[in-house]
């Protein structure tokens, strides 16, 4: 009886020690990856920041109109800083995933391969988002200036509609690219877009038909063009 008890205790102790001995290197590997991740991420961040600042990336983004929407969204840092921070977290997360993978846990098996397989979608979506934001900003700015110069009272509303219309379209494309609730996104976009167009058609057709008639007559009608009171040139 006592032998059986002793063997069981010894076996249990030995198994636990063995398991600890087996886990320890993996834990060590995890912490090593984390430490390496922090160092690599810090290096990438510093290098990126310096390179971007050397090449005047912040000024470039200001010209492209990227900095302004970020500032309006509450991001007060320069774009170079934001980009380098994003890269920091990407590098750090990659090392963290390597560490988790090294743990060889059943729950996280194939994690890295899944993430790497998804990366092209993320990159494509990021590009779509970037270009979409640029376009939204550019066309909203153009619409704002044109509306102000035409002395349209609701110039900012017009510019806002252009900006948010393009952003809505961009977000729908990004979500579709990422494969997140594809059908729902397409349906929601179609309903929203169709709804807006229908609402505008009703507003013009019912509420502002006289105004529209006059505007169309002004634009396409055969009438004497009334020149400006002033000749500027």
């Amino acid at each position, binding site marked *: 009886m006592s032998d059986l008890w002793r063997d069981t205790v010894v076996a249990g102790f030995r198994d636990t020690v063995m398991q600890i001995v087996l886990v320890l290197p993996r834990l060590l590997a995890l912490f090593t990856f984390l430490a390496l991740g922090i160092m690599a991420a810090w290096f990438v961040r510093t290098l990126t920041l310096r390179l971007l600042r050397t090449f005047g990336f912040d000024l470039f983004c*200001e*010209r492209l*109109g990227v900095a*302004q929407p970020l500032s309006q969204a509450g991001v007060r840092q320069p774009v170079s800083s934001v980009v380098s921070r994003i890269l920091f977290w990407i590098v750090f997360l990659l090392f963290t995933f390597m560490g988790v993978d090294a743990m060889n846990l059943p729950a996280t098996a194939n994690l890295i391969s899944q993430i790497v397989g998804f990366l092209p979608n993320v990159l494509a979506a990021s590009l779509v988002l970037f270009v979409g934001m640029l376009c939204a900003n*550019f066309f909203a*700015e*153009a619409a*704002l*200036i*044109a*509306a*102000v*110069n035409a*002395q349209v*009272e609701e*110039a*900012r509303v017009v510019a806002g509609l252009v900006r948010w219309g393009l952003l809505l379209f961009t977000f729908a494309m990004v979500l579709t690219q990422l494969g997140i609730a594809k059908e729902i996104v397409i349906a929601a976009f179609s309903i929203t877009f169709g709804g807006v167009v229908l609402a505008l058609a009703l507003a013009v057709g019912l509420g502002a038909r006289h105004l529209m008639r006059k505007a169309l007559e002004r634009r396409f009608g055969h009438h004497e*063009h009334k*020149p*400006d*009171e*002033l*000749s*500027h*040139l």
Partner: protein
Amino acid sequence: MTNEQTVLGSPGIEGEQPTDTTEIIVGLLTLNNAATIESIVKSVLEGLQQSFPDIPALLVNCDAGSQDGTPGIIDRVAAGMVPVRMIPNAASTYANLTRESGFPGRAESIRNLCLAAQQLQPKVCLILEGQLRSLSSGWIDQLARPVYEAGEDYVVPLYRRHRYEGTLVNNLLYPLTRALYGKRLRYPSGGAYGLSGKFARDLLTRSTWTGAAGKFSVDGWMTTAALAGGYRVCHAFLGTRDQDTKIGSVDLSIVLAQTVGGIFHSMEEYESAWERTKESSEVPLYGIPQTAPDPGPLQTGRMISGFKQGLRDLLPLWELILSRDTLGQILTLDMQDAEDFRFPPELWVQTVYDFALAYHDQTLHREHMLKSLTPLYLGRTASFVLETQDGDGAQVDRAVEALCRQFERSKPYLVEQWRWRDE
């Protein structure tokens, strides 16, 4: 065969050949001008007959794609009197339909004329637009004689105008060009020009015909090319200008972007020329200028409301373009009543120079930046009208002169800031 060799194209109906000693080329820039071209050609022929009877001349029709038989009319009217050559524009003429002159393909037509000048080496090259109803035989003498006899290189026309015609010229284009290049040459409003053969040939060597500069006003850059190149420039008074296409029918912001943008663009090209120029001098004037009757009181309410709307809606853009000091002063203008509204000349000059610097820096998309100047220009114009409405034409001239001097006085600020940005 190169384009230069073949540019003169086909002869007119009568097939008269230009001689090797052609001394005057009269370039007619046309696009669907059947309604006006017959009287123009008759006036040109009469002018040549009266003023230069024994001088070999050639009529060159640079057509931008007329569909109404304009070139045929020219051939018919000039037949047997002066050799005629037709140079059609290339198919790409309509790439940019909206021009401040209201005439698409004009720059290419002028380039074709310069190519003809390169081929024939004339002494004088006249540019006449096909929509000018008021062109008389006297114009030929006024434009060609300063070049032919007095050795001028570039003759800019002056027209009979009332005191508020050309507010953009008076408040921006002329003072800025004068301060930059040191010659009191009015910014040209198109219609007709006289060029020496040398200057016409030199224009061909400029890069301005193509690329980004191609979208700017050809009149503006021809003028800056003459001024920066040290050519002899002068004015010729031509009388009343009456034409088919109204310049005012083109959107003001497009006019601003093309004309002001042209000057700003030239500032990059001729940096060394304008940076060292300190004062301005008069240019010769041929003819006696006259002014048209007063147009009566002008309404400034819409201009002021345009300015105030710009202040309300475009402020985020102006914050990027204007210096803190300039913007601070502009913000105070919002407080003024419509009757007492004033946009001081010093502030206007500072505003224009800040825009030039922002254009140089590419702070914003350049076309957006130039178009965002429109409300500020409207504010300045309203102020200009309100300042001078109780006076006469002479008071307007004094106000323009004072503004020009302000542009010249403030130029060191522009030069200093420009250099600082380049470092």
